[in-house]
């Protein structure tokens, strides 16, 4: 439905509406409905526990924004929003989430004292102030994009970009290249020494006394390597596929999804120590270790 409206908004028939003092009721409805969706998406992005869910919610919000762009006569931006943002950037996010996987960071438990309340307070005040600013700015009358988009939105933009903003455009090009190179530099690890053979690695592992078998397959984030323990999917849930059928049949799968909680406690204890109120957290952590050992 939103897509159809967006298309409609694009047609020359409704250009007059864009020019008019007030917008069409259709757009109003669209605004109120999708606006709610966008806000909800944003809130979920912030308040959902798992990064994956946040990413998806954000993607939703972005799509809604794309629709709004279209509705505001920014056809090119709308498309770019969908293609670049939702399509590329958000996917990039998801990839990274997959790389990083489920970490202890995914918790809403606040470690810095008063941080959350301060943040909410500031947010609230900031929002109110912004709204107040917008409110008493006299933005009542406005002229639409009729003649600006007369020659077509994309052409208009192109004209501006390659004349008025050409320099900035080139600069951004350079910026992108730099960013790409920078990303590579940051993530690339140069191998200086000779690659070690399987044998050496094995010997090393034995010497270190940890992780004798190879690490789990890519895309799977395993904290344990016992055959009866399922690897974790990016969202932290155990994936039964990583356990051999027999055990699956016998239902002898051990669940380690509480691993995240342990790490979380460990992290909170670390933070606690840094903030000098560590003893309690430390004791909890020690108990945790104890029962882990007992297990």
């Amino acid at each position: 439905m939103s897509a159809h409206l967006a298309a409609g908004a694009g047609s020359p028939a409704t250009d007059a509406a864009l020019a008019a003092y007030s917008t069409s009721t259709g757009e109003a409805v669209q605004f109120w409905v999708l606006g709610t969706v966008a806000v909800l998406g944003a809130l979920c992005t912030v308040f959902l526990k798992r990064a994956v869910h946040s990413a998806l919610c954000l993607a939703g919000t972005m799509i809604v924004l794309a629709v709004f762009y279209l509705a505001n006569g920014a056809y090119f931006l709308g498309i770019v929003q969908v293609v670049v943002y939702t399509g590329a950037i958000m996917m990039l996010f998801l990839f990274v989430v997959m790389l990083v996987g489920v970490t202890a960071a995914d918790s809403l438990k606040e470690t810095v004292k008063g941080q959350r309340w301060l943040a909410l307070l500031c947010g609230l005040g900031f929002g109110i102030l912004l709204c107040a600013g917008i409110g008493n700015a006299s933005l009542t009358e406005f002229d639409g994009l009729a003649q600006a988009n007369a020659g077509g939105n994309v052409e208009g933009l192109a004209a501006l970009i390659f004349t008025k903003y050409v320099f900035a455009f080139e600069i951004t090009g350079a910026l992108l290249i730099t960013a790409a190179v920078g990303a590579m530099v940051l993530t690339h690890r140069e191998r200086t020494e000779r690659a070690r053979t399987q044998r050496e690695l094995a010997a090393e592992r034995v010497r270190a006394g940890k992780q004798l078998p190879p690490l789990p397959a890519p895309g799977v984030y395993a904290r344990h390597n016992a055959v009866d323990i399922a690897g974790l999917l990016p969202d932290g849930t155990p994936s039964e596929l990583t356990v051999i059928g027999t055990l699956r049949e016998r239902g002898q799968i051990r669940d380690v999804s509480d691993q995240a909680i342990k790490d979380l406690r460990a992290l909170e204890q670390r933070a606690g120590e840094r903030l000098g109120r560590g003893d309690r957290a430390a004791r909890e952590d020690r108990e945790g270790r104890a029962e882990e050992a007992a297990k």
Partner: protein
Amino acid sequence: MNPVNYLYLAALLFTIGATGVLIRRNAIVVFMCVELMLNACNLAFVAFSRMHGNLDGQIIAFFTMVVAAAEVVVGLAIIVSLFRSRHSASVDDASLMKL
């Protein structure tokens, strides 16, 4: 309906995003919130360009996207290397600003 509402919406989203940046510990989520803020700005720009009837606002929004893309690329790279070194993507783990 008065398109000024778009601005209000933008303000709302921006605020939410900012709050998210402050609240969340997962670097990735923090990044998402930053993206949210950027998008809110874009929305505002677009709405302005509609009001003033010229495309400059859209141009700015376009540039913002480009910059945002670059920023995300670098930022995510940072997060990955951070994770490699610390096995955690928590911004609190990288709290070395205090000696």
